[in-house]
């Protein structure tokens, strides 16, 4: 039996169609995935992401522990800031990708993927043993993502003018603990926005207030197409324990300096770097009709398989299909996606495809 979030009945009232995602019944859309996607790009949308795992990390050695556990370096952020990082295994494979917020000198909050939070918590607990640190899962907190160019303007409806002003002044990847919840200026859509952690009663109140004030509820379907347009990896599709961050367009999230910070997976990544990184994750789009989907092969002019699509979809902001693809080696000048045994020419594009409402794919494509 799938779990639900505290907002289940409110989703039903809003017309949600549900899908089982990582053991949770979550809204996939509320009538039209495309309209929800465009609402986030053009105005504002509201996602229930309470299925994600919140984990508080506290204690005098909280920082030392996270500097050991994570490939990015929490030593680089002070209180009130957030950091994106991979959690690696000893072989340098990606166990999960996460956002860690520094709440105070000895307090951090980590947001984990729903499908991975169990695995992550076991791994983190094992790594934490030598440190003076307490790990506390926070299933009592739900999570909303308020995203879109009008997200700032929407804040006041729930937070009131004074608090909304302070939250609106947050820089990207900054965060603030307030009496009405914990708020970070973060998201997974490529648009401005906020992620808000709240206990169940306030979560319900916030959802109702925002939807009542005209913010469009948006489901996991729109969340997926928005993140793909923004060129953001999805764990389990674009990377997993068998791929390293260096092969997954995430080299920028690995903090090599200082050289003596011995994070889990470091020696494997250094070895990989010495040998040379062969596989890459690249952006592709289909200038003609058709839809890229995960697991479709990419072939070169001689028909040799050069890679495969890891995430693919129709891109509602663009009107054609885009994807991420893993290549086994060199990127050929020309390539084709094999869709139902037919070859369709593709073009390369370094992601993102869309960022803050701007279309970054140069060629005019279309169906």
């Amino acid at each position, binding site marked *: 039996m799938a779990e639900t979030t505290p907002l289940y009945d409110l989703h039903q009232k809003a017309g949600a169609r549900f899908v089982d995602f990582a053991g949770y019944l979550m809204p*996939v859309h509320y009538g039209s*995935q495309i309209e929800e996607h465009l609402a986030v790009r053009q105005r504002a949308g509201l996602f229930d992401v309470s299925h994600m795992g919140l984990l508080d990390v506290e204690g005098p050695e909280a920082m030392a522990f996270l500097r050991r556990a994570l490939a990015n370096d929490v030593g680089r952020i002070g209180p009130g800031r957030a950091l994106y990082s991979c959690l690696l295994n000893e072989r340098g494979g990606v166990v999960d990708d996460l956002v860690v917020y520094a709440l105070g000198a000895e307090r951090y909050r980590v947001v984990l993927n729903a499908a991975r939070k169990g695995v992550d918590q076991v791994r983190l607990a094992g790594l934490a043993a030598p440190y003076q640190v307490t790990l506390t899962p926070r299933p009592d907190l739900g999570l909303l993502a308020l995203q879109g160019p009008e997200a700032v303007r929407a804040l006041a409806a729930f937070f009131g003018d004074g608090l909304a002003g302070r939250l609106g002044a947050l820089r990207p990847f900054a965060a603030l603990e307030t009496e009405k919840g914990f708020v970070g200026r973060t998201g997974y859509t490529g648009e401005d926005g906020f992620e808000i952690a709240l206990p169940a009663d306030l979560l319900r109140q916030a959802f109702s207030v925002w939807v009542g004030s005209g913010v469009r509820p948006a489901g996991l*379907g729109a969340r997926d197409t928005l993140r793909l347009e923004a060129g953001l990896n999805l764990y389990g599709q674009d990377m997993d324990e068998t791929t390293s961050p260096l092969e997954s367009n995430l080299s920028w999230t690995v903090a090599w300096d200082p050289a003596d910070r011995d994070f889990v997976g470091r020696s494997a990544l250094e070895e990989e770097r010495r040998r040379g990184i062969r596989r890459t994750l690249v952006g592709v789009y289909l200038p003609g*009709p058709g*839809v890229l*989907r995960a697991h479709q092969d990419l072939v070169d002019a001689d028909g040799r398989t050069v890679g495969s699509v890891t995430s693919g979809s*129709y891109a*509602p902001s663009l009107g054609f299909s885009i994807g991420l693809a893993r290549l086994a080696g060199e990127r050929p000048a020309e390539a084709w996606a094999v869709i139902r045994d037919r070859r369709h020419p593709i073009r390369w594009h370094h992601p993102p495809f869309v960022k803050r409402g701007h279309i970054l794919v140069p060629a005019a494509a279309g169906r």
Partner: protein
Amino acid sequence: MSHNNPHDLRYTPSHEWVRQEPNGEITLGVTDHAQEALGDLVYAETYPVGKRLEVGDPCAVVESVKAASDVYAPVPGTLVAGNPVLAKTPEVINRDPYGAGWLVRIRMESGSDLAGLLDAAAYERLLKEGS
């Protein structure tokens, strides 16, 4: 969820509808239930005119934002037409699944008929059992 499934059509358990035309051809589409379950349709492709079809052979593909679905021939025959508006406006399947959103026409093999397909009441019973 209530659906308005026309009573003059026949239906398949895989959510296609079939209309018998006076000239021995059939018109095929996907049901209202199918278009709603698929969500916003963004691409549709019909197989080439002239393709010989056995029962259960794919004759069209419809793709929503999320996924691709095959559409199957409910009778043996020859594909004689694909709906030309789908290439530019696949969303017509969402708007009008029983009308402008039709997919293909098939000339039925002689001797075959629609007797094995569901009527509207039987199709609606199947939807109720499945939900």
